[in-house]
């Protein structure tokens, strides 16, 4: 099964995506991640205004089976959370890159290492086949 990895996004090894637009960015989890997780039943969202370092745990997505921490791809401050996920966590499964977005952040200066869509696809292939 081929997973979607839109070319205009950047990715992490912990399966988050980030769309950086100026000093703001939107963050969610990838198509591969939502599929691996199964039905998302709960999303633990951070408070607006909370600040996190790059790779800081800012929340969690949970299926019946397990909880998975969410890591912020870059340092920043939460400026919005997707409230729709509180009552409809399955949006993450249905539309991981659209309606299933998780947080918007104000990006702190000094963005760290992120992967391109191409690099992320190759990474997913490598973990799928190992």
């Amino acid at each position: 099964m081929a997973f979607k990895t839109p070319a205009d996004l950047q990715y992490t090894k912990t399966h988050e995506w980030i769309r950086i637009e100026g000093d703001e960015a939107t963050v969610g989890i990838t198509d591969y991640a939502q599929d691996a997780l199964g039905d998302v039943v709960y999303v633990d969202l951070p408070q607006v205004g909370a600040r996190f370092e790059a790779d800081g745990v800012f929340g969690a997505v949970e299926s019946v089976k397990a909880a998975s921490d969410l890591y912020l791809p870059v340092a920043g401050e939460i400026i919005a959370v997707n409230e729709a996920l509180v009552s409809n966590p399955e949006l993450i499964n249905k539309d991981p890159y659209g309606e299933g977005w998780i947080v918007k952040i104000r990006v702190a200066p000094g963005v760290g290492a992120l992967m391109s869509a191409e690099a992320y696809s190759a990474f997913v292939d490598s973990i799928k086949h190992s």
Partner: protein
Amino acid sequence: MSDRIGLRRTPLYERHLALGARMVEFGGWEMPVQYSGIIDEHRAVREAAGLFDISHMGEVEVRGPDALPFLQHLVTYDVAAIPPGQSNYALMCLPDGGIIDDTFIYNLGDHYLVVVNAANTAKDVAWMHECARNFDVAVTDVSDRTGMLALQGPAAEALLAQVAGADLAALPFHGVARGIVSGIPAIVARTGYTGEDGFELFVAADDVGRLWDALLHVGRDAGLKPCGLGARDSLRFEACLALYGHEITEETNPYEARLGWVVKLEKGDFIGRDALQRIKQEGVQRRLTGFEMVGRGIARSEYEIRDLEGRPIGKVTSGMPSPTLGKNLGMGYVPVALSREGSEFDVVVRDRPVRARAVKMPFYRPRYKK
């Protein structure tokens, strides 16, 4: 999911892949965790039927003139109370009362079949051989040549009746019999691990593929779904059936695990009896307790439990959002004083204490045909 080297596969491995299963490591095996989705499969078992590949389970035959006295020595349950054609849950305990494994013992008339947990099979078989030294008994691990399926749910009986004789579909609760299922010689038992009516079927490993195909075929219009270990876990969790390594371990005893009913102190001597008698007399310090999350958060295995003053008092053994009940539920060990229904404590979810309240167990009342 990076390291699958050395994992064992059941004879149905290729079929699981063809059905689109997601495979995971479990107890040294590469097993399907889900096909269509855990919630979908869970509902199928509660409302219609599900078919599980549980060929990873260990099966041990016990034969010989001393089969009964040996098993009486080995387990806490009174095996003499299991007549031919019946089965029961039983525990193997250490001399100190800690639980080596939980098992199901089937009396097949000419021998006993003991089903043990996959991850414990090697440990259990070694222990059984050690304990068998002074008995005239043959203990044989037949796990590798045995396939095992579970057909579970309210539609299970009607589905089995389409591929097996009426005598098998009419087995009583915990009954077991040899028979033919879809042309395949099988041992069929009215047992399971879901809190629903259903059957477990033992066949030769070479036949389990054909049996799997036949059952999925007869169930295709009846809502039967292939189900993975994810739904197996969520179903047993709602029925508060213990999972080895979680609710029960070598560090837990049957009384604190609420399994005192499986310990028959009056049946005569057995391994762990002295310790268990003492534990029962003195009373337990902690007890397995079911709880509902009052605050927002999902309890998970190993999460810390604190009293309302913030002192650590125990750990969660299993926790998840219950698909049938729509609540975030959990089980864990807490001091006896806090194990009563309505008691409140906190579960630490990602460094945050979230309020929980003890509730009645089981969460889901099993619907066995008795």
